């Protein structure tokens, strides 16, 4: 194993030793000939065990593609993905993905949904059932154990998906814009829930978002991605203790600096989508925006 250093600096809980993820010289594209688009080009990064890494980048840059490569639904054109030193060759129980769309099973009651992974692999015991019950109570779904997902609100469905993912105890948690499409209030609540659940379990996690505040609220580390073809343009460590709040972030000097750094890095990528005179207009607008944050 080559990850001694990595595991040491993340020695928060026992779980923290799993999920060390390496992405090496990764290339991926879609289509052939004139239709060909390169989506990921020479992308390299590592996910530290027990850390919550937030990946942020302009939409359409290739974040979901990377998530699918990590989940094993896609195979890379070139390069390698390793988790705890093993190559990712296909979908596996060591990684679990929570999508931006709900992927609950409508025909199973909520408790069954949470237990499905364990049931399917014949690992369900009384302990697992108790854990599901406890987790569902924790996230306010206790009364809905024997109801179908269709009876849940959007926010509740996401919470159930979190429970389901946690119960499966993946080494790596992949969350692809899991709170997109929720209303602002629910979204804030979900972020708090998630941060809390993460603090308790300390599982290696990759959280994908396009929202700067969400990134700042959750991240131990932020990866700012370039526009397509995607690679990491900046890596920023956020060593501010959780729980964090939006109000607290406005006052905290470190947070303010980090926000400006992330915003600048993101901006220089986003502006590539504009051309000619519209770029100048966009640049002027951005300067004004930076003034208000400082």
């Amino acid at each position, binding site marked *: 194993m080559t990850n001694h250093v990595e595991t040491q600096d993340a020695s928060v809980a026992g779980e923290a030793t799993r999920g060390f993820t390496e992405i090496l010289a990764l290339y991926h594209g879609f289509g052939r000939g004139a239709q060909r688009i390169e989506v990921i080009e020479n992308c390299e990064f590592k996910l530290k065990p027990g850390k919550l890494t937030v990946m942020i980048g302009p939409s359409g840059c290739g974040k979901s593609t990377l998530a699918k490569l990590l989940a094993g639904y896609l195979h890379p054109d070139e390069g390698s993905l390793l988790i705890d030193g093993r190559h990712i060759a296909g979908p596996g129980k060591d990684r679990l993905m929570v999508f931006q769309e709900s*992927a609950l*099973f*409508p*025909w*199973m009651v909520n408790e069954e949904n949470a237990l*499905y*992974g364990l049931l*399917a692999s014949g690992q369900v015991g009384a302990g697992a059932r108790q854990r599901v019950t406890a987790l569902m109570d924790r996230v306010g779904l206790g009364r809905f154990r024997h109801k179908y997902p*269709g009876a849940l609100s959007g926010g509740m469905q996401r919470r159930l998906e979190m429970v389901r993912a946690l119960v499966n105890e993946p080494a790596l948690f992949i969350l692809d814009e899991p709170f997109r499409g929720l209303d602002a209030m629910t979204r804030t609540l979900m972020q708090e829930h998630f941060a809390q659940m993460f603090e308790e379990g300390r599982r290696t996690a990759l959280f994908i978002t396009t929202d700067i505040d969400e990134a700042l609220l959750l991240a131990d580390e932020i990866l700012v991605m370039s526009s397509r073809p995607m690679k990491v343009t900046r890596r920023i460590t956020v060593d501010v203790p959780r729980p964090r709040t939006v109000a607290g972030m406005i006052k905290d000097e470190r947070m303010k600096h980090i926000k400006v750094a992330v915003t600048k890095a993101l901006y220089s990528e986003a502006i590539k989508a504009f051309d000619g005179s519209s770029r100048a207009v966009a640049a002027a607008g951005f300067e004004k925006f930076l003034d208000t944050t400082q």
Partner: protein
Amino acid sequence: MTPHANTHPGAIGRWRTLPSAGRRAAVSLIVMLLAWELIAHSPRLFGFEVPYLGVLPAPSAVIGEWVMLLGDAHYWGSWYLSFTRVFAGFISALLLGVPLGLWFAISPTMRNLFFPVFEMLRPVPPIAWVPAAIIFWPTQELSIISVIFLGAFYTITLNTYNGGRRVDLAIIQSARSMGASRSNIFRRIVLPGTLPSIVAGAAIGMGITWEVVVAAELISGGNGGGGGGLGLFMWDAYLAGNHEQILVGMLSIGLAGYFSSGLLRRFGGLLTPWLSRN
């Protein structure tokens, strides 16, 4: 535009749940029967015959005939015969159509090999199969049932196939990433995911079987074959010039179809509890 023009789809459902819905249905039924009764007696009442409709037997006469038939073994025998045929044809369509549809849905090889043949035979109406079925099958009963079978088979297969293909890929991927085996995914994800489409296909198929059974019975019994059933019951009434009995036959088939569909909906609802509200 009238204010009714923008009535949204939920309106019908809401109308059904109105407490007065039953009363309205009763009122409409009574008004219709009264109008029909008046029209049937128009020559005596108004001194002229209402065009076309005037030749109808009066509802009172039809109901009288019907009440009389309730004690008639032949009438109930017709019901029984049609029901057993529909049941046999429908069940065999279900037993063959569902697996075939699922197979089409999950296996590209199967789809490439047999779907073109399936699609070519599908537009041939079941009734057009009657002559061939009579030649092909050794007994008249089998010919009738095979035609009924075809009526439901295509619809059930096609609905199952479409439903199977529409099962959300994200859901299947998420099951896969939790380490579920292929057979587990088929049983616990693909099959229940397709079930609503199977139920819908079965309901449509059931409607078609009742359309087909009567025609098949009419045609096969027409040349003195005498296969029985509600279709032949009507044909005999026509030959005998008994207009009341023709109408009794029509209404009986309507009722039979209504009961079968109702039963199927009940059963389908039990199989897909997650689709009902709450």
